[in-house]
């Protein structure tokens, strides 16, 4: 149902796994996140599940496990943002976005590998902005990022817009190349 973008799939996720995942987060983040923040983490995780349902590889793990990992990441981000009152440093962002799966000896998906390559090929400031956005799970306020990168908010806006555009084009090109390669192999 989720893959078919049927809203009943969301209800099933909550009904089947919401209680356990929520309990797990409350236990893991006791004294750090309040009930509302745990709710926020569940809510953010649900949005990610909804957006990327077609990317789940159920051969690797259950939906419950996926949902848990995503919700935990969301909770960590909420915790970190509350603690710092700001965004993560670029160094920690680079670390967070580094290929964890590859380090663990588990090959990332092809899409993920291509995505990382395309990010790596961006201009430095564009890359820094997009990496920070990825680590924040969305978009980092331009003012905060400007201070961190030693630039202006306007420059961050421009880098973000151009970076996203360049990334989108690069991904589309890679996709086209991949399709052409498959076609030539089939032929």
């Amino acid at each position, binding site marked *: 149902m989720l893959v078919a*973008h049927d*809203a009943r799939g*969301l*209800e099933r996720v*909550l*009904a089947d796994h*919401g*209680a*356990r*995942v*929520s*309990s*797990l987060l409350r*236990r893991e983040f006791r004294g750090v996140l309040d009930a*509302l923040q745990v*709710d*926020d983490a*569940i*809510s*953010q995780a*649900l*949005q*990610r*599940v*909804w*957006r*990327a349902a077609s*990317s*789940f590889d159920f051969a*690797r*793990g*259950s939906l*419950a*496990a*996926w949902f*848990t*990992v*995503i919700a*935990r*990441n969301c909770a960590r981000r909420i915790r970190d943002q509350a603690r710092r009152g700001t965004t993560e440093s670029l160094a920690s962002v680079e670390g967070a*976005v580094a290929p*964890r*799966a590859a380090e*663990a000896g*588990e090959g*990332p998906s092809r*899409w*993920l590998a291509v*995505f990382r390559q395309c990010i790596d090929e961006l201009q430095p400031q564009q890359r820094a902005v997009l990496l920070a*956005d*990825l680590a924040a*799970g*969305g*978009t980092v*306020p*331009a003012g905060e990022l400007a201070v961190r990168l030693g630039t202006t908010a306007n420059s961050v*806006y421009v880098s973000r817009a151009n970076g*996203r555009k360049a*990334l*989108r084009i690069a991904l589309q090109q890679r996709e086209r190349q991949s399709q052409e390669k498959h076609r030539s192999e089939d032929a």
Partner: protein
Amino acid sequence: MKDHGDGWDDLVARWEVENVADAELRAAARALAEVPDAVAEPIPAAAQSAFVAGTLASVPPSAGTRRTSRVGQRLTRNVAGLAVLTAVTTLVVLWGGRDSFATLDYRTAIMILSRDDQPSRQYQSAAVIVYRQVQRAVGALRDIARRDVDSAAANEAREALRLLLAAVDGAMPPSLGSVGDARIDLDAAMRRSSSPTSTPAQLGAVAELAAFAMVGVRAVVGMPGVDEQVRAAQASCRQRLRIELLR
């Protein structure tokens, strides 16, 4: 996480999903299995509905495939911004002497408008701040209402809750005079919402201040040209507020 029309949020979500290592999935499965049944309290149906509504509101069904032109998006955002500003100005005029209300709503609107690249997200942030504020005040009101059911304070607290619910449901406009005549500013509201010595009238006024912000914006989002996502996010937040009042 809002869709800003350029597909970025879909990329973030996909990155988040595919960047999970197998070891993390296995650990999560083990951790879940260790949660005792007795500890895992089911999420109430009303809360489930709010979660789902919030998700659907923040992610349009066509997310990932939508290709709205950037000019169109910017135009929509500007129209939405102008609509909010116009309505706020109207509210300032209409509410006249109640400048503390107008000031809060104006501040909220300014916060929404301060980020012209993502008004929906900023709107949601503002709504969350308002929601947290009202949650504190409503929690305190509920405590008073339950502490001594026959006391005048408890009756006043129950009346404040009833009026708030009606205001959130749109059955009546918020009216500070109905629960007290305290004139409060944002800082005072913050202090009073967490003060154990606040009276029901003060708490009711704090909560009503927040409800006003939500109900006030409801008129704004009914205007043509306002971002559909803003409309949906507002509906979701109002639903959460209603759940809080009924809890």
